C-alpha cells in the first residue's frame, strides 16, 4: 500500500477506495428511500431518486485518483441539506399524507 505524506497530496492507498464505497452506499440508501417515497408521492420520490444520482456523482468527482485530497465542506453540506430535506418531506408525508391501511402480511 502506498504511504501518504502529511499534506494530503499523495495516493492514500485503500482509503480512497473505502471512501468511494461509502459514497456508493450512501447513494444506494438515497435510491432506496426514494423508491419508498415514489410509491406514495411521485414527485417527491423522483426528487429523491435524482438526489441519489447526484450523491453518487459528487462522490465520484470529488475522489477521482490524482486529485488533491483535502476537505470539501461545501459538498458535504449539500449532502447534509439534502438528507434534511428528505427528512422534512418524509415528515410532511407522514403527518399530512393519505392515511393507509398498511400492508397485510
Amino acid at each position, binding site marked *: 500500500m502506498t504511504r501518504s505524506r502529511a*499534506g494530503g497530496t499523495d495516493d*492514500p492507498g485503500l482509503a480512497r477506495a473505502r471512501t468511494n464505497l461509502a459514497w456508493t452506499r450512501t447513494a444506494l440508501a438515497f435510491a432506496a428511500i426514494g423508491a419508498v417515497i415514489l410509491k406514495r408521492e411521485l414527485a417527491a420520490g423522483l426528487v429523491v431518486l435524482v438526489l441519489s444520482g447526484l450523491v453518487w456523482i459528487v462522490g465520484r468527482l470529488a475522489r477521482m485518483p490524482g486529485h488533491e485530497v483535502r476537505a470539501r465542506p461545501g459538498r458535504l453540506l449539500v449532502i447534509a441539506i439534502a438528507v434534511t430535506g428528505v*427528512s422534512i418531506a418524509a415528515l410532511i408525508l407522514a403527518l399530512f399524507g393519505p392515511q393507509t391501511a398498511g400492508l397485510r402480511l
Partner: protein
Amino acid sequence: MACVGETTVTFVTLAVAEAARPEPAWDLITVANVCPSWSRLTRLVTGVFALKNASQFFVIVAVVPELAAEVVGLGAVAEAEEEDGAEFGLELAPELEPLLLPEQAAMPAPSAHTSRICWRTLRATMQLFSNFSPPAATQRPPVHDTRVRHPATPRPRAQRMMWGNVPVAHYRKETQTDASGPASPAPPASAGAGHEPDARYTFANERTFLAWIRTALGLVAAGLAIVQLLPPFHGIRWGRHAIGVPLILLGAVVAVCSYLEWAANQRALRRGEPLRRSWLPQLLAIVIALVAVAAAMMALISG
C-alpha cells in the same frame, strides 16, 4: 603325538610404528597417538604448535600480500575516526583500545570499504560499554553507509531504550531528517488555522460523516415505512405516528449534527487537537430504545 596348528602373523602389527612412514611429521603424529600421556602441553614443549603457527603465518603472508598494507591503512583510518570521535564525544575507554587492532587483523579484508564497516561496527559495539554522550543533532555527521547502523540511528525497537543519559526517542525526534519521512504521519502541531491533515484522516472523517448520513436515511425510511406500511394499532389512532415520526425527526437531527461533527473533527485534525466526544450515539440509542418500548407497549395494548 603332535598338534599341528596354523598361525597367521601380520608383519604390520609387529613392526615398529615410527618405521611405518619416514616423514618427520608422521613420526610425530604416530608418537602422539601411541603415547597415552601426550597432551597439549607436550606438543607445545616439543614445538609442534610453534611450527604449525609459523607455517600458517607464512602461508597467509604469501597468499594475501596486501594484508600488511591493509593493517597500516586501518591504522590511518583509526586515527581519522578517533579524531572525529573526539570531536563528537566518541571517546573510547583506554582499556578497550588494544582490542581494535587484533579485531581488524583477524578479519579477512577484501576491500578498504569493508574494513571501514568493520571498524565502525566494532567501535559502535565498544561504545555501548563506554561512557558515551550523544552529540547534538546539528553536529552529527551524515551517514552514507547504509549497511552499518550508526550509533545515532538506533533500531526502531530501541525507541524505549536509553542512549547514555538521553532517551532514544528524544534523540530520534531531533535527528529525524532523512528523506524517508516519518514512519506514521501525525497531525501537525497547533499553529493558527492549522495544516491540511493526512489524507487518510480526511477520508476517515468523511466516511464517518457518510455513515451517519446513511443512518439518518435509514431512520427516515424506517419512520416512513412505519407510518405508511404498518397496519394501524387497534384502539390507538396515532400509534403509527407515535412510532414513526420520532424516527423521522431523529433522522433530520442526525443529518444536521453529523455535518457539524464532521466540521468540528476536521478543524481539530487541522489544528492537531484531540477529537471531541460525540454524543450522537447516545442520542441514537436513547431515542431508538424509547421508540422500541413505545412500540412494544402499543402492541400489547392493541392485542
